[in-house]
Structures are given as C-alpha cells and as structure tokens.
C-alpha cells in the first residue's frame, strides 16, 4: 500500500505543480483490504468558513482556500469514489454563504457527503443547509465499510431555543470559538438512539468510519474541542472490531487512540488554530500521542492548511500529511503498540522547534 500511496502522492505533486504550482490541500482517504480490487479512496475537505462581507463580496482569503482544494481534488487519479466535506462551509450560516460555498463545491466531479458544522447550523438550525446538502445525520455502506455521518454540534435545548432573542444573535454567540456565552457540543439523545439502531444491523467485524464535526473525545471545553456526550457515543462504537472517527472543527493535526477507536482530525482550508496549550489560562487534554503541527507562519496565507492521505489498512488508519511551507508528516497506525504514531517525530527528542507551541 505504501508503494501505491507514494506513487499517487508523486502524481499529486506533479499534477499540482503542473496545474497550480503547488501541492494539494485535501485529504485522500484510502481503504485497503485483502483484495486489491476492493480498495478505494475518498477525499476530505473541511472548514472552509465562507464569509459574506456584503452584496457580492466574500472574504477572499477563505474563498481561495476552498477554491484551491476543490480544483486540486478534481485532479486526483485514480478518481476518489466520493468526497467528504467536514463541516463549517459557512461562517455565519446565511443562505448567501451556503449558496456561495455550494457554488464553489459544485465544481467537484464527485458525489459529496456533507457534515454539519456549528457555523452552518445555528442561524436556522440547519433548515437551509438540509435543502442543499441532505440529512443532518445518516449512514451509508460503501465497498464493505459502514460510514456514519453525525451532527455532533448540537447543544442543550435551553441554550438553543430559550436563551437568545433572535437567530442571528444565537449564530454569532456560537460562532465565536472562545466566546464564554457558547455552549458545549453534543450528539444528543435523538441521534444516539438512531445510532444504536443503525449499528444493530451491522456485523461487529465490519470496519466503521464515523464522520463528525467536533472531536468525539474531550480535549478542551473552552473552544469546543469537545463533545459533551463523547463517552456515550464511544460506548456505542465499542463492540466493533475496528472504528475510525474523523473530525474537523479543530483546524489542526490531532490523533488519538481510545480502546478500539482511532481518532484523526483533518485540517481546515480557511485558517489554522493554535493548540490549546498556547492559551496560558486553559486546562486542556490534548492527546499525549499528538505531536503538534508545525507552528503556522501568518505571512504564508495557506500555511498550516495541508492535505493528507488516510490509508485505512484492515480498518486502521495511516495518515500522510502534506503541510504547506513545511516538511511533510506521516502518522501511521503502529500495529504493535496499537495506536497512531508519527514516523519521524513521535519520541520527544526527535521533535523540531516549530512543533514546540507555547
């Protein structure tokens, strides 16, 4: 599989250089099984944050990130079976933003599955988004893998329905990542009940891949790198042999292993976020396994938005990150230790200065 990955990656680099003069900020996910004919790939784009200024004007910087990802995804050979969008297509959930984002995404020549982000949701609770992109949560099967899409950014009903005088204010309050008036994300009882019923039909040996916007683990509550009912969702996934959770929202590389569940984040096309440790007043739980992404250089507009191959061999995930303006990263599932590990930087003494965030 490594040979296949490498050759594809070389193609991507060549194709990107020819067409756009750069590398590709998308996630290519490859699922590998015993039979090569069963292998397939999908691409992953996330956190575009298309932001309306007024009239026909949108924030150029964020537009460029998504336009580039879409253009480069179209260059992938072999063509991925489908594309995932990991949530936060819009910044403030308006029809103008969702329409503009959908217009950019419409250039993709693939089937796209969308995950709901809080920036898409809290204006009208997903009504317009559903018209464009389909149900807020669902599952589908593809070549022997069971995929689950959750809306993990819901919260307490009281906050959603009773706290704010208008929908616009509710959206603004949730849009501020560090806003103390926000509320913790959760999957909620309705979807957990649905998930339980959905999983009841699936063999315990079937590889499960779950897409959520927020991490289905608890990292830092202050910025909602957090899902309030994470443990309850994890418990539903526990009986399965191999489970992978892939999430957006955090705009940075994170990985973790909890029992049978591998966790991996994807990067944003819009902008990177600091690690919680760089906020001196925060108590956080960044997974100890995670070697941070290199510190972003704001003078390179697309720095720290990269792309990654995710190779799921027998259900375990191997990630090949390409970072703009930085050295590539490879995070592979270590079959002996049974958790993801960075190929070069995992041990403390191998880390480089730009990974020392503070």
């Amino acid at each position, binding site marked *: 599989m490594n040979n296949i990955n490498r050759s594809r990656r070389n193609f991507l680099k060549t194709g990107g250089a020819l067409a756009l003069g750069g590398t590709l900020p998308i996630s290519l996910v490859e699922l590998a099984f015993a039979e090569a004919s069963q292998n397939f790939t999908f691409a992953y784009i996330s956190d575009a*944050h298309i*932001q*309306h200024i007024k009239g026909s004007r949108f924030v150029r910087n964020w537009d460029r990130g998504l336009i580039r990802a879409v253009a480069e995804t179209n260059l992938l050979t072999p063509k991925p079976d489908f594309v995932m969008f990991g949530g936060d297509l819009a910044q403030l959930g308006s029809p103008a933003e969702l329409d503009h984002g959908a217009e950019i995404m419409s250039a993709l020549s693939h089937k796209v599955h969308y995950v709901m982000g809080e920036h898409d949701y809290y204006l009208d609770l997903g009504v317009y988004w559903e018209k464009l992109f389909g149900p807020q949560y669902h599952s589908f099967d593809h070549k022997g893998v069971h995929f689950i899409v959750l809306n993990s950014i819901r919260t307490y009903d009281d906050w959603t329905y009773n706290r704010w005088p208008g929908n616009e204010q509710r959206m603004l309050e949730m849009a501020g990542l560090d806003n103390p008036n926000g509320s913790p994300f959760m999957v909620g009882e309705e979807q957990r009940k649905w998930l339980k019923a959905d999983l009841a039909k699936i063999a315990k040996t079937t590889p499960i891949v779950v897409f959520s916007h927020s991490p289905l683990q608890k990292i830092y509550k202050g910025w909602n790198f957090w899902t309030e009912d994470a443990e309850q969702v994890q418990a539903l996934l526990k009986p399965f042999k191999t489970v992978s959770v892939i999430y957006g929202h955090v705009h940075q590389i994170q990985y973790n292993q909890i029992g049978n569940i591998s966790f991996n984040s994807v990067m944003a096309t819009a*902008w990177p976020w600091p690690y919680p440790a760089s*906020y001196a*007043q*925060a108590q956080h739980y960044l997974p100890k396994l995670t070697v941070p992404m290199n510190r972003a*250089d*704001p003078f390179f507009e697309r720095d720290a938005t990269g792309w990654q191959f995710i190779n799921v061999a027998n259900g375990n995930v191997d990630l090949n990150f390409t970072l703009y303006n930085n050295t590539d990263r490879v995070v592979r599932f270590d079959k002996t230790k049974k958790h993801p590990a960075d190929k070069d930087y995992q041990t403390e003494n191998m880390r480089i200065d730009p990974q020392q*965030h503070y």
Partner: protein
Amino acid sequence: MARFNPITTVFAVFGLAVNLNAAQADEFTTVDEQRWQQQFMDSVKQGRALWTSPTLGSNGVACAQCHPNAANTHPETYPKFQKQIGKVIPVWEMVNWCLRNPLEGQPLAADDPKMVAIQAYITYERRGVKLEPGKH
C-alpha cells in the same frame, strides 16, 4: 522686630516639601488600587471587544477568528526579531500587520487608545507567563 532666621525658614520649607511628597507617593489606599485596576481592566475589556469586532478591519474578519483568547500572539516575547519583517519590532507592529493583511484594514497609531487596549487584552490573556523577550 523679630529677626528673620534663614536656617529655620529653610527647614520649614524643606519639611513641608517632604510632607507633600509623602502624601503623594506613599499614602494610597485600597480604594486607589481598586480604581487603578478598574482602569486597566476597562482597557482590557475594550481590547477584548476590539479583538472580537468584525468592524476593526474592512472585511468582517476578527482577530479572534485565528487567535481565540489571543493565543499564539505571545506578547511576552516582544520586542523580538520578527523573521518575516527582518528586524526587531514591538508587538504593536505585528498587530498592525494583521490589521492590514487578514483584516484588510487600516493600521492604528502606536499610542491610539485602541492599540493600547488591544495590547492590554493580549497581555492580560498571558498573565502569569514569564517574560521571554526575543524568544521566537
């Protein structure tokens, strides 16, 4: 008619001056301290409002979008050699770089109360962190 004693007069004037100095420099109260703290926190609060404001720049982008809780601004390392600019600069020059670029706005003067407030806010979020001038 009493004679004027220059020495006594000098002592009297000097003594008066000492007393005045004592009153101005040493005799402050808890109320004073609370007022000064309040003045500072008002500036922090104004800085936080600017940090999250979509109107500080021209395109609706706010500082907090990339720097939640002013994280990764590390004011405790300034002045420092800013590698991208190629010289030693104070933190307000980097704030202006952000105002001009991601926020597509106008820079602020170094002594603009808004710039002071922004620096009060980002420094307050780093309270307790040791000074490391020059650190990248």
